[in-house]
């Protein structure tokens, strides 16, 4: 028994340190201010009233009346209820589209190497579409030019050769998105570059032919380009 007691004392001495002096003093002071709490601790209400008495001008009756008032808490809805309830099951509002990130692609996260099969598919599509052996060597190339203008460029390996803004020159990559005014390209450093079409000249290769696109004349949405009839111009300005 004595051993157990001594063990306990040992444990207590190791684990429980006495309070620092400052803390002990403040606690004693506080208990003094509050009054000895052991007196009227039958109900919590009494304690509250005892606490509030020296701080307010009110009587005990008024205080008890105040404490008996019921404060209804604010009706806090969970996050699920707070979400905008969609009335239409199928269509999305533009705010929702923006939240989902459908308009903007992430700037990092898409790797250049993973888009290689997409580029191969594009090359196959263009070779089948343009029929280059026949059309490139023929005399009348209008049909070929029409097809190039109407073709789809997602997955094309574009390079900017000439541009009014010198920082765009030399940008090279696979097209991921085409909008009315821009080409969005993933370059070899796995970054998304947004290159405006205006005042830029792009080139791309298919087997042994190179093609140039004048960005100024391509400022059209890709879907509308499919039905556009391009007029031939005598001179092409940058």
């Amino acid at each position, binding site marked *: 028994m004595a051993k157990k007691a001594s063990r306990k004392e040992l444990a207590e001495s190791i684990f429980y340190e006495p309070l620092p002096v400052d803390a002990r003093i403040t606690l004693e002071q506080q208990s003094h201010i509050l009054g000895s709490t052991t007196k009227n601790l039958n109900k919590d209400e009494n304690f509250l009233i005892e606490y509030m008495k020296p701080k307010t001008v009110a009587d005990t009756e008024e205080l008890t009346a105040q404490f008996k008032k019921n404060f209804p808490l604010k009706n806090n809805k969970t996050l699920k209820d707070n979400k905008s309830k969609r009335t239409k099951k199928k269509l999305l509002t533009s705010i929702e589209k923006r939240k989902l990130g459908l308009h903007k692609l992430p700037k990092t996260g898409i790797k250049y190497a993973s*888009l290689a099969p*997409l580029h191969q598919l594009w090359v196959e599509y263009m070779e089948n579409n343009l029929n280059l052996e026949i059309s490139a060597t023929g005399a009348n190339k209008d049909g070929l030019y029409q097809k190039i203008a109407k073709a789809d460029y997602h997955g094309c390996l574009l390079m900017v050769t000439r541009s009014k803004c010198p920082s765009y020159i030399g940008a090279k990559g696979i097209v991921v998105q085409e909008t009315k005014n821009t080409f969005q390209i993933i370059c070899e450093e796995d970054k998304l570059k947004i290159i405006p079409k205006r005042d830029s000249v792009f080139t791309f290769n298919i087997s042994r032919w190179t093609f140039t696109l004048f960005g100024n004349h391509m400022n059209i949405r890709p879907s509308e380009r499919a039905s556009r009839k391009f007029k031939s111009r005598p001179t092409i300005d940058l």
Partner: protein
Amino acid sequence: MYFAATNGGGAPYFISKMNMSGKKTNTSGSDGFQRLNFLYQASIVALNAVPHCPQITSVFGKNMISIGKKLQLKLDHSVKRTICKGCKVLLIPGKSVEVKIKPIPASRKRKSRRGNQRKIQEWKCMLCSCVKQFVLNPGYSLWAEQNMDST
């Protein structure tokens, strides 16, 4: 890798006709169909390449639908059913859709006995939670598919 997207009529379209002399000529609208075909295949490839960013496939889906509207080309049922109506993402069961089978909702039930036993296959897009519902009817085949079998 190439497969043909059929037009709305039911018979498969031919990309290029052969002339009497053996030269290839183009049918009307063949360019647009080629483009739709390419876009659909590209969206599948893109989803495999970048599975954590399905927003890329929504770019392709949007283009497909708008080109179809501009050139007045109809997408085949098998293609259209795999494009989400809300966000235009490519839907692959398990990857970008949750497919569930549910009992037919009370609002659609008919008073006949057959109507009450129908079930619905519900496709819920994982991105935008837009829902596509197909009534499961074992004996039913689409008009387009019927024509293809007969001709």
